[in-house]
């Protein structure tokens, strides 16, 4: 029927093969072969080796989609670091060739981008800012034996994916307890409610770690309300919360929703309540969306651009010079750190053998690297450097540094 017959079937099968063959033809590069691979970690995953007079470094960033603001910042941050080393003559005479790919804020496109970078010879992959995408990328990198340095993926289990998964940010494992401790000890809060963005793995993870530590300290989590990013009205959740008499509310989501939530909480009639959150709050805009109600709230951050450490100052100057403006979010700094820590490790690689393998080894040896967001040490810590976490207060003039916590402040973690 409808013009279908035997021949069309064959032509179809041929067409399919042809389509496949075309792609094969376009992309035939010298990758390693591990199709039909079993579940175990690959034995022959050797990663890439730098050849010629450049060292290829890949970056996956959300240049499109929901995470675009963070993606653009991480793109800029990495470029500052790469530009700096290349202007200084590169590493042992080899320039860094930065290859940027878009993840379109989606995990599977992030993975495609990663595989593309690896197939093009990247010895290391940088990114992403979101844990969900990073997890996919880490899977791909682990299979190929290429190290990955995550920028802002704070979810705890990301680094469990493989031995060469690194990150330059702290973990939710720390971030939650930091805020819990701060709430309990410094703010004197005892009855705290949570509001969690169910669509964001980041938010659910952070709420969980906050809850666990706060309860461990003797505080009470009196309620947890849920929403999804993209929603705009939260009166229903807040009305519920008000009836529970919280003295503090921990908002683990991103600032897009946090601002309006706090604003609406004021309208619902929540008074004298302290609002707290994680690094997802980090943005200048939260003051505009949260209005007066959000002033005097606290959240956990990686660094503060008003710190007078030399690293911060010089980073901000370089960023300003290159991009004509300051980074909108912390991701600029973290991305710079991710690139800088890789550059630092590349310098320690044997100059005749710059490869994924030697780089991973060098990364593991990183000890006390002075990053913009604080010292980074992988040595003895796997991919999770013991980073400090800052508690900052939102005032009408912006973020004001209030208290810093070290990992050592939490011996019970």
């Amino acid at each position, binding site marked *: 029927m409808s013009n279908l017959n035997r021949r069309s079937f064959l032509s179809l099968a041929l067409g399919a093969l042809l389509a496949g063959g075309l792609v094969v033809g376009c992309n035939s590069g010298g990758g390693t072969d591990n199709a039909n691979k079993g579940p175990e970690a690959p034995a022959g995953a050797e990663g890439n080796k730098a050849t010629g007079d450049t060292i290829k470094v890949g970056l996956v960033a959300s240049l*499109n*989609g*929901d995470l*675009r*603001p963070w993606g*653009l*910042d991480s793109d800029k941050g990495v470029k500052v670091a790469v530009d700096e080393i290349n202007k200084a003559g590169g590493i042992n005479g080899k320039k860094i060739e930065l290859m940027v790919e878009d993840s379109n804020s989606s995990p599977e496109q992030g993975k495609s981008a990663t595989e593309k970078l690896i197939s093009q010879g990247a010895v290391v992959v940088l990114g992403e800012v979101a844990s969900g995408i990073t997890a996919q990328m880490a899977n791909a990198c682990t299979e190929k034996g290429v190290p990955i340095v995550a920028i802002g993926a704070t979810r705890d289990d990301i680094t469990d994916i493989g031995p060469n998964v690194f990150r330059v940010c702290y973990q939710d494992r720390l971030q939650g307890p930091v805020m819990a401790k701060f709430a309990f000890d*410094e*703010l*004197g*809060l*005892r009855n705290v409610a949570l509001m969690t963005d*169910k669509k964001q793995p980041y938010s659910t993870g952070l709420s969980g770690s906050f809850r666990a530590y706060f309860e461990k300290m003797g505080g009470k989590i009196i*309620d947890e*309300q*849920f*929403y*999804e990013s*993209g*929603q*705009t*009205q939260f*009166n*229903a*959740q807040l*009305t*519920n919360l*008000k*009836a529970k*008499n*919280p*003295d503090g509310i921990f908002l683990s989501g991103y*600032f*897009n929703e946090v*601002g*309006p939530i706090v*604003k*609406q909480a*004021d*309208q*619902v*009639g929540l*008074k*004298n*309540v302290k609002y707290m959150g994680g690094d997802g709050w980090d*943005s*200048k*805009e939260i003051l*505009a*969306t949260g*209005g*007066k109600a959000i002033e005097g709230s606290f959240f956990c951050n990686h660094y503060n651009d008003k710190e007078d450490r030399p690293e911060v100052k010089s980073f901000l100057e370089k960023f300003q010079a290159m991009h004509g403006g300051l980074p*909108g*979010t912390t991701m600029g700094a973290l991305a710079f750190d991710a690139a800088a820590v890789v550059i630092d490790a590349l310098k320690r690689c044997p100059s005749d053998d710059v490869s994924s393998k030697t780089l991973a080894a060098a990364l593991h040896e990183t000890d006390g690297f002075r990053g913009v967001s604080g010292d980074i040490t992988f040595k003895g810590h796997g991919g999770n450097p013991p980073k400090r976490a800052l*508690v900052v*207060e939102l005032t009408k003039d912006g973020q*004001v540094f*209030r*208290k810093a916590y070290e990992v050592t402040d939490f011996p019970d973690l």
Partner: protein
Amino acid sequence: MDLTHSLLGAVDFGLLPQQVVNGILLGSIYALIALGYTMVYGVLRLINFAHGEVFMLGAYVSLFVAWGLGFGPGPVSPDQTSNWVNLVIMLVASMGVCAAVGMFIEFFAYRPMRNQPRIASLITAIGVSLLLQYAGALFLPNSPPVPIREEVNPYRANVLDVPLKPKSADLLAQTKQAQVALDEAERTLKDTVAAEGIKSEFDLSPEGKKVRDARNAARTKATVTQNAYDQSGLSLRIPYGQLIMFLTSIGLMLILRHVVMNTAPGRAMRAVSLDYDSASLMGVNVGRIITLTFAIGSALAGAGAMMNATFLGTPLTTFFGMQPGVKAFVAAVLGGIGNIPGAVLGGLLMGIAETLVVWVGYGDYKDAIAFVILILVLLFRPGGLLGSAKVEKV
């Protein structure tokens, strides 16, 4: 199903009236956007997937107008004040630009497809929607997402308090007392901080910490008494913004209904929606009527966008139209798509349903409930609540 939260344990029936009010206010946003959807669908039978993006553009227009009015991205001087005139300017600009954009999209993307199967226009609509999202992201400020400054809307923070049952006078006194005590404690703490010569209350000496603990205790007490006072009576809190949105959607519904029922273009719209070819044979300028419909529908999206952006302060990205767009479409179908009061009814119903789901403690299923209700309603009334399922002539 996740049974971690027990159903009835979390329910506080005292909150029900407030939650229903919340639901109505939430629904009025859906209703406002759904009106535009239903207009376009009613006349053209086209699911205008780009409606959400027109809504998004409307919000950006409001943003730019707000910037132009002096409420720019930079710091705003404290004496910079706004009034309703500014809001009207934003509203008119937003509606106007959206109407233009709607007509533009109709002309370039939908008109050429008019004699094609409807699914083809649907795909074009999806294409337009993607294009506006991604192309918008290149040119419009969205990194980081930008909100409209709250200062531009002086009514945003206001709340209408409708007392149903008076609150306890005793508790009021206690609350005031607690607040005074808290203020006192804050002052003491401030003095202590100044005396110790440190930057903030978080670097206090052990003695100073005691002062702070006292302040914390006072704050907790103030919170508790305040809440007790609030809960001693029964009053409905209605934010001005949402109230205005509610009244606007009802008003627009009445106006639209009047236009569609009692005016010449309205009659033409109905004629086109009933039978396209006959209408054109009867001398209706179908092209113009469709353009007009798109203009009105898009202008409504513009109105909704302006209110959403200024009253709720949602930060804008070029992707933020998608979700309200889909929700509004569901509301329109729920009420009976093509039916103007149906769109409002559907929107309000969805708002109430979503709110009640949150009320019983299932906020994580909030976005699903709209669809569950939709499916149930359509199973029993395939034409939606107020719509009539078309009986096909055989």
